[in-house]
C-alpha cells in the first residue's frame, strides 16, 4: 500500500512542523510561568532553569494576593467580556443576516456604513465617548464598558458573519419559507446553527481585545470596584517595576482566565464543525 506509507511519512512531517511552531509559540509563555515560581536570585542567575526545590519560591504570588483584590478584578473582566460578547454575537449575527439575505434599497450602503467601524479605532473618539457616558451617568459602571466594546466588536462581527452567511444554501432557506417558517425562525433555527463555527471564531476574535484592553477601563471605569484584571495588572506593574517576582506572578495569573474562556469557545467551535453543516 504505497498510499498508506506515503501518508504516514506526511503525517510525521506534519507533526514535526506543528511541534516546531508550537515550541516557538509557547516558549515565551513558558519563560514567564517558570520564572514566576522562582526566587529572585534564581531568576537572574539562570532564567531558563526549571523551578526545583532549590530555587522554588512562592513569594511573587504571595505579594500579588496581598495587594489589591484580584478576584473582584477577574469578576469584573468576566462580566464585561461575556456581556459584550453576547451583544456582539446576537446583534451582529442579526445584522449580518439582514445584509446577506435580503435585497433592499441601501443594502450595500448599510454594509459599507457598518464596515466603517473596522477601519477606524474607536479610541479616536474617546473624548466624545467620555462626554457621552458622563451625560448618561454611566461613568465607573461596567455598562459603559459593555456598550463601548459592543460598538467596537460589531463591525467586524457583521463583516465576517455576512461573508459566512452568504455560503448558506438558499435552497434550505427557501424550503423553510415554503414550510411556513417566519423570517425570525429561519434565522434562529436554520441559519444560526449552520454558522456556529463562524460564530465561535468571531467570539474568540471579539473576546481577546476586550479582555486585554487597558484604555477604556482606565478612562471610563477606573474605580476600585470596577477595575478589570488588565488594568489591575498594569497598575501593579507600575507600582512594582523592580519586584520581578510579583510582576511575573501577576502576568501568569492574568493569562489563566482568558485561556479558560478561549478553551470554552474553541470547544464550541469544534462541536459546531462536527455537528455537520448541510451536506
Amino acid at each position, binding site marked *: 500500500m504505497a498510499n498508506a506509507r506515503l501518508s504516514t511519512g506526511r503525517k510525521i512531517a506534519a507533526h514535526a512542523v506543528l511541534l516546531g511552531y508550537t515550541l516557538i509559540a509557547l516558549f515565551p509563555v513558558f519563560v514567564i510561568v517558570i520564572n514566576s515560581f522562582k526566587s529572585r536570585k534564581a531568576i537572574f542567575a539562570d532564567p531558563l532553569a526549571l523551578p526545583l526545590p532549590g530555587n522554588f519560591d512562592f513569594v511573587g504570588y504571595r505579594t500579588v494576593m496581598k495587594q489589591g483584590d484580584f478576584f473582584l478584578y477577574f469578576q469584573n473582566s468576566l462580566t464585561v467580556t461575556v456581556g459584550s460578547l453576547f451583544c456582539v454575537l446576537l446583534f451582529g449575527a442579526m*445584522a449580518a443576516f439582514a445584509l446577506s439575505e435580503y435585497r*433592499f434599497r441601501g443594502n450595500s450602503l448599510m454594509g459599507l456604513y457598518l464596515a466603517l467601524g473596522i477601519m*477606524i*479605532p474607536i479610541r479616536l473618539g474617546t473624548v466624545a*465617548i467620555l462626554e457621552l457616558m458622563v451625560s448618561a451617568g454611566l461613568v465607573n459602571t461596567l455598562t459603559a464598558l459593555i456598550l463601548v466594546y459592543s460598538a467596537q466588536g460589531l463591525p467586524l462581527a457583521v463583516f465576517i458573519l455576512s461573508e459566512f452567511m452568504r455560503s448558506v444554501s438558499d435552497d434550505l432557506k427557501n424550503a423553510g419559507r415554503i414550510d411556513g417558517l417566519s423570517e425570525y425562525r429561519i434565522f434562529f433555527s436554520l441559519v444560526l446553527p449552520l454558522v456556529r463555527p463562524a460564530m465561535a471564531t468571531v467570539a474568540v476574535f471579539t473576546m481577546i481585545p476586550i479582555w*486585554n484592553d487597558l484604555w477604556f477601563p482606565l478612562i471610563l471605569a477606573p474605580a476600585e470596584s470596577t477595575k478589570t484584571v488588565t488594568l489591575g495588572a498594569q497598575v501593579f506593574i507600575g507600582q512594582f517595576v523592580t519586584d520581578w517576582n510579583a510582576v511575573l506572578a501577576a502576568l501568569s495569573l492574568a493569562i489563566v482566565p482568558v485561556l479558560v474562556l478561549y478553551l470554552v469557545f474553541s470547544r464550541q467551535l469544534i462541536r459546531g*464543525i462536527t455537528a455537520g453543516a448541510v451536506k
Partner: protein
Amino acid sequence: MAARKPVRWHIAVFLAPAVLIYTAVMIIPLFGTLLQSLYNKGEGGARVFVGLQNFATLFGDALWSDAFWNALGNNAWFFLIHMLVQNPIGVALAAILSTPRLRMAAFYRTAIFIPTILSFVIVGFVWKLILSPIWGIAPGMLDAVGLKMLFAPWLGKEEYALTALALVSVWQFIGIPMMLIYAALLSIPDEILEAAEMDGITGMSQFWKIKLPLILPSIGIISILTFVGNFNAFDLIYVAQGALAGPDYATDILGTFLYRTFFGFQLQLGDPYMGSAIAGAMFGIILIGVCVYLFGIQTRLRRYQF
C-alpha cells in the same frame, strides 16, 4: 417574490440593535473627531474653523511632515512583513492542521493560538526580557549553538528595531489567519475532496488546485484585516518602546505618532486639533485600502455555495 411585499419590518428588526449601538457609541464620537480636524486654536484659545489647513501642515510643513512620512513608511514596512510572514505561515499551519485524522490537532491549534490571547502588556514585557542583552535568554541560546556573533541588541538598533517588533507582532497574531483559514478549510464539503481524490488529485496538488481557490475569499478577508489592524497598531510599540517609539523614532508608526500628538508627551503638550488631523489621515489611508479591497478584489472573487 420577496421584493413585492409591502414593508418588510423584519429587516429593520434585524438591523436595528446593531445599528443603534454602533451609531451612538462609535460613529457619532468619531464624526466629532473628524470634524475637529477642521478646526484649530484661534486667538485666545477659541476654536476657529480653518478648513483643510491642518492637513496642509501635516503633509507639507517640515516640522510635522517629516514625522508623518517617517511613520507612514514604517507602517508600510510593518504591514509588508505581516503580509509576507504572518499570512503565508498562517495558511500553511492551517493547511497542515486540517489534515484529516491528524492526532493532537486540537492541542496544536490551542498552543499556536495562545500568543494571540495574551495582552500586549505581557507580550511586550516578555520579549523585552528575552531579547535583552543583559538578562536576555536570546544571547545565551545563540551562544549555546555557537552563533553568538549573530546577536545584536535588536530592539535598540535603529536598523533592526522595527523589523524585530513586526516579527514579535507576527508571533503574537499568527493565530488569527490560522484560525480563519482552518475554519474555511474545514467547511469544504468532503464530497468535493472525495471527487478530487477519485480524479487522482491528492496532497499538495489538491491544496493548490481544489482547496486554495475555495478559501480565497477567506484569504481576502485576512489580508484586509491585517491591513486595517497594522495601520491601527499602537499597543505593542507603546509597551515595548514607549510613546517616543525609539530608538530615534525608528519604530514610530501612525498609531504612536497620533498618540504623541493627541495626548502629548514629556516636553510637548497635546494638540487635539493636529491629533484629529492625523486621525483623519489614518482614516483616509485605511478607507482607500478597504475600498480597493471591496471594489477591486472582493467583487472579482468567485464564491461557491455548498
